[in-house]
């Protein structure tokens, strides 16, 4: 039997029972669609997150208090107050870290901001005037705070668009005073809406000099994070080492494994986020694979029914000269064709859905969500669905090939 006729025979077998064939492959279609969707969306999310991280500048180095815990009993990971002003001063010393363009200490907190009868839960972000430059923040009304404000601990605040909306409605907040934790802060500027896609959502934030936030609002002497930038990307690795050495000196640490701080470059962060989104994607793929498995069992079930139903056809073919191998190939190819068609439909369906979702996310949320056609997923989907046909079609096909030809002669 030639391959062309084998193919034709199998195809005829499938088209004779179109609606059943369609229902049979539904499980495979759903499984492959889910996998394509997950891989495509996972890729899109990863691209978006990495874009955000890299948007901060790949020459950015962040210093975080505490260290990655090395084990459950590693309590020093909790040193959240290890970064002090003397560390900032040490880092600012060009003799210690020559490549740094600037050093910006930051503090975070939360509180309720009130204006007249209105109140709104805000995040307080204390930093230096460099904040505007790093995050490309330009007030749409008023202006940003200055280095003088930082030095003299002025009670000023720059508020995000959501804060404006909840406290002032359509009124101009500039020059007004808002109350946070019982202290008045003068609004000197407001920020335009940044949209939901940003890693930092400035819309519901209140920005102020870190000195003001430390002394009057949070009552702390340490920093939550120190953000630095080097002149060029190439200086990042050396600067990161210089920073770590400087801080160990400053904290009298001799053993690097006992660090009470973590130096994180944007590249580290990007790598870590890639690992997380990648792991998440593959986890979801594994879940979606259950659908594929169930689909495969469905294929086997239908093929077994089909083999029983077509006993006479099998017997007849054997009586006319078909060998066991001819029958085996015919039914195996039917199963593989079924699943491969299912896989193909799933790939098209999954990619189309991912494309639609990409458009909806881009338009609806205003984020720069890119549609990614997962070639690896498509190829894998096709191979896997074909394999499912081979695996789950194998048993029914071998049952078919073992049928005795005299069954064709048994009368109805």
């Amino acid at each position, binding site marked *: *039997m030639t391959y062309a006729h084998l193919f034709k025979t199998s195809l005829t077998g499938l088209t*004779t029972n179109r609606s059943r064939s369609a229902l049979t492959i539904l499980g495979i279609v759903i499984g492959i669609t889910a996998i394509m969707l997950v891989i495509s969306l996972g890729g899109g999310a990863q691209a978006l997150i990495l874009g955000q991280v890299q948007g901060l500048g790949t020459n950015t180095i962040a210093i975080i208090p505490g260290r990655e815990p090395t084990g459950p009993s590693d309590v020093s990971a909790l040193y959240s107050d290890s970064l002090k002003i003397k560390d900032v001063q040490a880092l600012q010393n060009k003799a210690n870290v020559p490549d740094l363009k600037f050093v910006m200490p930051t503090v975070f907190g939360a509180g309720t901001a009130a204006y007249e009868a209105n109140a709104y839960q805000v995040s307080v972000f204390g930093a230096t005037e460099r904040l505007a430059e790093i995050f490309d923040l330009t007030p749409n009304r008023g202006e940003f705070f200055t280095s003088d404000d930082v030095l003299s601990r002025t009670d000023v605040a720059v508020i995000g668009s959501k804060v404006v909306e909840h406290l002032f409605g359509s009124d101009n907040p500039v020059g007004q005073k808002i109350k946070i934790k019982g202290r008045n802060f003068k609004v000197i500027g407001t920020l335009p809406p940044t949209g939901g896609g940003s890693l930092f959502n400035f819309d519901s934030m209140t920005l102020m000099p870190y000195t003001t936030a430390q002394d009057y609002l949070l009552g702390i002497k340490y920093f939550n994070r120190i953000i630095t930038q080097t002149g060029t990307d190439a200086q990042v690795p050396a600067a990161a080492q210089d920073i770590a050495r400087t801080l160990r000196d400053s904290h009298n640490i001799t053993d690097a494994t006992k660090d009470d701080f973590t130096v994180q470059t944007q590249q580290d962060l990007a790598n870590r986020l890639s690992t997380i989104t990648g792991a998440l994607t593959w986890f979801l793929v594994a879940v979606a694979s259950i659908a594929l498995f169930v689909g495969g069992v469905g294929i086997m079930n239908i093929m077994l029914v089909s083999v029983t139903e077509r006993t006479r056809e099998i017997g007849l073919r054997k*009586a*006319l*000269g078909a*060998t066991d191998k001819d029958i085996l190939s015919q039914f195996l190819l039917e199963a593989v064709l079924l699943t491969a068609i299912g896989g193909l439909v799933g790939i098209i369906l999954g990619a189309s859905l991912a494309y639609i979702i990409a458009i909806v996310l881009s338009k609806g949320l205003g984020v720069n969500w890119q549609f990614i056609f997962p070639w690896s997923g498509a190829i894998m989907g096709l191979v896997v669905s074909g394999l499912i046909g081979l695996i789950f079609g194998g048993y029914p096909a071998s049952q078919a090939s073992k049928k005795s030809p005299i069954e064709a002669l048994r009368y*109805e």
Partner: protein
Amino acid sequence: MTTNIIEVKNLKKAYHDGITETVALSGVTFNIRKGEFVAIMGPSGSGKSTLLHLLGLLDSPTSGHYSFNGKQVTSYSGDELAQLRNKEIGFVFQSFNLLARTTVLENVKLPLVYSDVPEHEWNERATKAIEDVGLGHRIGHHQAELSGGERQRVAIARALVTDPEVIFADEPTGNLDSKSGKVVMSIIQRLNEKEGKTIVLITHETSTAEHSERIIRLRDGELESDTQVKKRLSADDEYVK
């Protein structure tokens, strides 16, 4: 001198269901010459279907010797038997066994798919076989559009298409009215007389069996009688055009 195409010696077939043994054929011996038209008769349960399965290489005997066209087929493998069935044997079944939703031409071509006949000859061969049974005008029809007699003629064309030595016909008129049955019998008789095909016909109707030259009767798995037909019926004589 004519050679024997079928030589059967002490052929036995027993079925086991695990506990009991049912003997379907308890040792039969006979020969069939090349070009002979033999009818095998017997009541149901006499073992005639079992015998046909064995002679048609669809099943293997429990014991005994079977030589088909000079080959000791009892030692043949499944694939070798499949090849022999394809090349040298044609089957006509009581219930036609045509493929559903398939045209007359495709049905007749089916044995060629499993043969080593080159593909460019398939249409020519199949068309000739269909014309031989008088269905040239039905070649593109689906089997559902045909009458019972026409379906059986398609089955005969399918049996002929590989130009086999022997045609085994298992109650070929059993599902047909008498008029269609006569047409089918006249075609089978013509194949024997004009084309020299060996015919082995299974039937329980004496009138059908008398179209043959020789009648082998079975009873309870044994050969009861083996007689020449003295006054052969000719289907053409009775067939009113």
